[in-house]
């Protein structure tokens, strides 16, 4: 009986789990290997003797130096970071207040407003960039970081609002009522009691927003034209694919370095992130 259960567990749990892990992590692994592979090995055929298609025999940093010397990669990294932080900050502030209002306040049209905000999130960016480009040009923000800092919140705020609205709904309303009896105003109760309790939710909304703006491609491609204003995703693609030549080593190195900050942010906040998504507050 027990033995049967054991193999069943292997069959139904470990095996699919392993397949899933390989499936999700292999592209990342492939990127990392390619980033450290010398060009001679990169372009060799797999049939060749001593070929090691799944790893590298002569790891090298040549792509790292190439990336730093021939492109403005450090500037892209800085641009991406600044834009992601500012747009995440704006979106979190707006999203927290909007999410709280939609979750807690009863006012005329609150449900319609909630749905309307959600619908704006559903409009694809590939359509929205056309009118946005007009606005960005009219405000003369083109080719400045503000073009992205102010347009990213158009999809980040609805996203944060919805995620936080769900989180605020899981917080017992008695906490707030108790604070109001204890002598806090509605605003005071929100700031002193509800926001601190909602930190896991706010952090996970922040992480998501940060990742979304870090990886954003279309707006960055359209609104930024000069090489020193680009973000990592756009810079890597537009400067390292020249004509029909792909600089695979540098491309992969750029992608690897570009994904490190996001990975760091996730690993720092993973605990908050999980409770933020599952939303559990106990009194």
């Amino acid at each position, binding site marked *: 009986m027990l033995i049967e259960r054991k193999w069943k567990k292997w069959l139904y749990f470990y095996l699919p789990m392993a397949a899933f892990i390989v499936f999700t992590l292999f592209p990342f692994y492939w990127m990392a290997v390619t980033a450290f592979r010398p060009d001679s090995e990169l372009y060799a055929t797999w049939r060749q003797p001593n070929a090691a298609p799944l790893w590298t025999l002569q790891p090298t940093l040549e792509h790292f130096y190439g990336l730093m010397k021939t492109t403005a990669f450090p500037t892209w990294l800085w641009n991406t970071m600044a834009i992601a932080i500012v747009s995440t900050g704006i979106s979190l502030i707006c999203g927290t207040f909007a999410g709280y209002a939609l979750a807690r306040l009863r006012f005329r049209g609150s449900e319609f407003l909630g749905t309307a905000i959600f619908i704006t999130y559903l409009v694809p960016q590939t359509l929205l960039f056309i009118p946005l480009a007009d606005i960005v040009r009219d405000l003369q923000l083109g080719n400045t970081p503000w073009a992205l800092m102010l347009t990213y919140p158009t999809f980040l705020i609805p996203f944060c609002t919805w995620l936080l609205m769900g989180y605020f709904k899981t917080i017992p309303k*008695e*906490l707030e*009522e108790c604070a*109001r*009896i204890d002598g*806090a*105003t509605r605003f005071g109760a929100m700031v002193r009691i509800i926001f601190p*309790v909602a930190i896991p939710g706010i952090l996970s909304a922040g992480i998501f927003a940060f990742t979304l703006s870090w990886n954003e491609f279309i707006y960055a491609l359209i609104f930024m034209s000069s090489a020193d204003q680009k973000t990592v995703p756009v810079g890597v693609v537009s400067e390292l694919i020249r004509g029909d030549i792909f600089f695979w080593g540098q491309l992969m190195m750029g992608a690897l370095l570009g994904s490190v900050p996001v990975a760091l942010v996730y690993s720092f906040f993973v605990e908050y992130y999980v409770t933020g998504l599952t939303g559990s507050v*106990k*009194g």
Partner: protein
Amino acid sequence: MATVTIRDLNKKYDNGFHAVKDVNLEIRDKEFMVLVGPSGCGKTTTLRMVAGLEEITSGEIRIGTEVVNDLPPMDRNIAMVFQNYALYPHKTVFDNMAFGLQMRKYPKEEVLKRVKDAADILGIESLLERKPRQLSGGQRQRVAVGRAIVRHPQVFLFDEPLSNLDAKLRVQMRVELKRLHERLETTAIYVTHDQVEAMTLGDRVVVMKDGLIQQIGAPLELYGNPANKFVAGFIGSPAMNFVNLAVSSDGRWAETEGLRLQVPERLRSHGGKRLTLGVRPEALQIANGTDQHGFTTTVDVVEPLGNEILLNFRAGGAPMVARVDPGVRIKAHESVRFAVEPGRLHFFDAESEAAL
């Protein structure tokens, strides 16, 4: 230290639900008033309107001499204990208890002294540095009570504060709350659906149903003289037994299948109508000899509880329970004759359900 006066209080929700209907209530200074009733009876809504957490549709609430209808909760000088404790999870026990005082800008020493005193009364001095999630249910409950008493409010409001505790702890906390109330001598309004809590804690008890007050009275008054069938059935455990009877046309006898009894003088005018007879389980005793007022039946379930035995049987077409002395030796399916004292019978109008 204040009276709470409620006049013609109504609450209608936007969806048309009329939760509280014309409630009139006077809670005396230092009184422990319990609101009891089944869920949805409007007791919690009434309490929340006193707290200022729910808007009043019409009517008036006074705390002391002041009309508080439009005052925000913070200005009503009340403290409330919630069913789920509502402790601030990110604050320590000390900060939880001190929050209300800090919001009111009390000097530091005063805050410290009051929290210490309250912690001392409740026996939670050793927990002051902990966070709520590190506490057991009973400890959380104490902290919630402590948070209410540090404020020295005019009125305590309790919203089913014991229903999240296990049965044993609930009994223990019940006694502690009663002791605390005697010590603090503060007006208290306590909402519960548990009639045992209502009976043991309340100086007076308000029984509510469907937003209406059914009866207000001291616990034993409700038990002895219920105003209607609902109160009679709600107060007391096991509940009162009810049987429907048809009264003979001359008004002298009332009967149903297998049961026949003499109608008391005062009800003789009910000839030809229907009555509901109510008998408390302890009013049914095993007959010794041939008592005049009694009936014979077969017991189907015997529940020996140690201090008493509950006998379940059917009589007059209705299920009934009798509470008898633990010394009685009766087995299931045994035939038993029960005796009833005429003075311990309750009669209700079969239609209006009012006591007669």
